[in-house]
């Protein structure tokens, strides 16, 4: 049954976690046209074939975007990602896989979103008593079970959003890729289109900044 299916994933693999470079649900059935075929047809003027690419990579983009921007903006940002991808197709040389190239656009679109947001100076909401309580619980040594139960709470998500909101867009982008997604500095640099040194320095500074935010949270 599965013999005719070739899984076309190109994950940025790391122990325990990876940023999926394509939708796991997507398996390139041999009867379906490959990315290369679709791209060629789009370049020849068959614009409608781009809809096939959207269907194929919809979950892939949503997964990347959904973790980086507020839930109510995710659809809008995913929309921008695909529009940018379409008008940037001329820059896609094929040296990397299409899903990897698309992941880069998604990451940079989210980064642009936060840059725009920082210019608007949207105020960061303060932590409540429940948030402080959650932080105290996490700071104290716990059993593994307690730990994993606590990370799935609403407070946990809100503290994470609060902490990330205090970072600069650059620090946020790098911290998300390197520390949260668990990508290597090189992989993060590729996705952001920045130099490896820049990402390395920023990853260190971003972590220090996050620690400072968590320590001086009052």
């Amino acid at each position, binding site marked *: 049954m599965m013999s005719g299916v070739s899984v076309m994933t190109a994950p940025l693999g790391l122990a325990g*976690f990876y940023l999926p470079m394509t939708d796991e649900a997507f398996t390139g059935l041999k009867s379906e046209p490959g990315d290369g075929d679709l791209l060629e047809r*789009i*370049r*020849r*003027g068959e*614009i*409608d074939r*781009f*809809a096939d690419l*959207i*269907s194929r990579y*919809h*979950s892939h983009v*949503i*997964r990347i975007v*959904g*973790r980086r921007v507020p*839930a109510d903006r*995710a*659809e809008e940002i*995913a*929309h921008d990602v*695909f*529009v940018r991808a*379409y*008008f*940037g*197709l*001329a*820059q896609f*040389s094929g040296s990397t896989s299409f899903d990897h190239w698309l992941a880069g656009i998604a990451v940079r679109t989210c980064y642009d979103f936060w840059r725009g947001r920082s210019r608007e100076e949207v105020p960061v909401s303060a932590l409540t008593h429940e948030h402080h309580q959650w*932080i105290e619980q*996490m*700071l*104290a*040594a*716990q059993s593994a079970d307690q*730990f*994993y139960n*606590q*990370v*799935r709470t609403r407070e*946990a*998500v809100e*503290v*994470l959003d609060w*902490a990330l909101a205090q970072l600069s867009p650059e620090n946020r982008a790098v911290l*998300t890729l390197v*520390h*949260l997604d*668990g990508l290597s500095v090189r992989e993060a640099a590729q996705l952001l289109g920045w130099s490896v040194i820049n990402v390395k320095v920023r990853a260190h500074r971003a972590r220090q900044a*996050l*620690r400072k935010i*968590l*320590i001086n949270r009052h």
Partner: protein
Amino acid sequence: MASNDENLQNLERALIETYRARPDLPVERARLTQDVMRDIRQTTCESGWWSPSIALDQFVWRTATIAASVVLVVTVFTVAVIRTTAGESAVSLAEEFESTPLLGE
């Protein structure tokens, strides 16, 4: 101090796990596809933008590269010529001074 650091690491680990435990957002595929395609068609029609072509892109970049190279070569050549001319005129001027007798000697 070490204990504080350990506690902070616990908190960091918790935030990392929280991030990774986030469920995927439900976004309707058909609607997203429809909206994107509508925007693409609209932009393409409005701006007279035609489908992307690698050939055109390569042509533009190659032309720009050749033009930049020609400009560079011409600039280097011009600078070299000017320097040579300036050097020659300085030398000939010096020779003229040397050969001219001072105070009519």
